[in-house]
């Protein structure tokens, strides 16, 4: 039941208020997460878009990094853009990643801001949420790209034939674009469907 869910949104830096508004419109209780204790009693967490270097640094400095990793090993977590970078495999680059999802991701893969774009994606997994229409309007801002995925990862959307832009591994969801910047709430509803009922 959506009504009894409590979803956290990592609020260290970035577009956390946009996610909060989307969830509130869906009748979900939200919690801004800035410190470890804010993770208590959450049913799931969204790591928003922002600057992944800034978000990671703040998570480390306030002792949140390991607790996020522990949370993500047990609970549904969705990362958008910078959030997807945090969920990905650690590639020994600085800053470190949470290393919880079996995806390899490359930052700023499409170029600089002048190359940021909007494109309609085909996302079959969303079709049941909107009268069987799989077309989804995606906004890519200095977006990363998912280069390779492990065997347990399901690819949810591609851009063109080859570029992986949305993926799911069990209770973890990664999108390199920004559903929180659209008026289309299907990805948020899809994530809520990933939350186990109590």
């Amino acid at each position, binding site marked *: 039941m959506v009504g009894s869910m409590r979803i956290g949104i990592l*609020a*260290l*830096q*970035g*577009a*956390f*208020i*946009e996610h909060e508004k989307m969830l509130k419109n869906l009748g979900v209780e939200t919690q801004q997460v*800035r410190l470890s204790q804010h993770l208590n009693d959450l049913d799931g967490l969204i790591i928003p*878009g*922002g*600057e992944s*270097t*800034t978000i990671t*640094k*703040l998570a480390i*400095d*306030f002792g949140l990094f390991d607790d996020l990793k522990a949370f993500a090993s047990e609970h549904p977590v969705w990362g958008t*853009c*910078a959030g997807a970078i945090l969920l990905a495999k650690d590639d020994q680059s600085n800053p470190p990643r949470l290393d919880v999802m079996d995806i390899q991701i490359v*930052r*700023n893969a499409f*170029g*600089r*801001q*002048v*190359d*940021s*774009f*909007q*494109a*309609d*994606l085909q996302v079959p997994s969303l079709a049941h949420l909107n009268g069987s229409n799989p077309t989804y309007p995606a*906004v*890519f*801002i*200095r977006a990363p790209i998912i280069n390779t995925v492990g065997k347990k990862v399901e690819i949810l959307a591609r*851009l*063109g034939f080859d570029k992986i832009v949305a993926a799911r591994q069990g209770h973890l969801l990664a999108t390199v674009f*920004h559903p929180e*910047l659209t008026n289309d709430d299907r990805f948020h509803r899809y994530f809520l469907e990933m939350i186990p009922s109590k």
Partner: protein
Amino acid sequence: MTETTGTFAVKKGLAQMLKGGVIMDVVTAEHARIAEDAGACAVMALERVPADIRADGGVARMSDPELILKIMDTVSIPVMAKCRIGHFVEAQILEALGVDYIDESEVLTPADESHHIYKHDFKVPFVCGCRNLGEALRRIGEGAAMIRTKGEAGTGDVVEAVRHARTVLGEIRHLQIMPVEELMTYAKNIGAPYELVMEVHKTGTLPVVNFAAGGVATPADAALMMQLGVDGVFVGSGIFKSGDPAKRAAAIVKSVTHYNEPKILAEISRNLGEPMVGRQISTLPDNELMAGRGW
């Protein structure tokens, strides 16, 4: 599958990703690295910070592309650069360099004393300064995808940033409760596009992200601006004109995240070394004030 670049959603979207963050002025690649390591969400590449522009006098122009490119090569976070008010060719050059945001800035010497750049024509997004709601909505009407308060750059005195933030946010609160028949006259009086006045009346917020700038020098200054209701903070001279830039930069980043937690603010404000030497704005002669530039 069509990919459409340069849409307003995409331009405004980058500013939304910068929210809750600190954008720092840097004059060398080394500064840029320090800013990124400290957690800056973007850097502003320029030849001189406003405090030096103020001290040096003369005409202040767009920075050397060589410097901007070096900084773009050094950091992975977005890089912004400034052009003069109305100087659309400087803006074309910055767009050609591939900077991520252009600040059409009163800190540089204006190139046009009546007109700003028509910013809708560009794929690169623009941020512009404002002192009040009318000025903010004029800039958005011209295509700005992000707004900041002007404050008084290069002084280390936060009083003007506070005045401008309180003015803009107060005018929005006032506009929200106005009866609809008063909106046209209000738009006329503040010199703002009617459609944007209508939109703010309905939504109670600017249609784009709104940062504070101009005089922020301490974590407490940054948290003050956040508590007043802005989305994030620009810090110009306040970091690299201080005694320990790396430490101060990291502390200001933390203060913008935890702006509502006085105990954390107390902890991160300790032992930061000397802040920049400030100049009290009320002692400056009128011809040295930058905030009045813009039309």
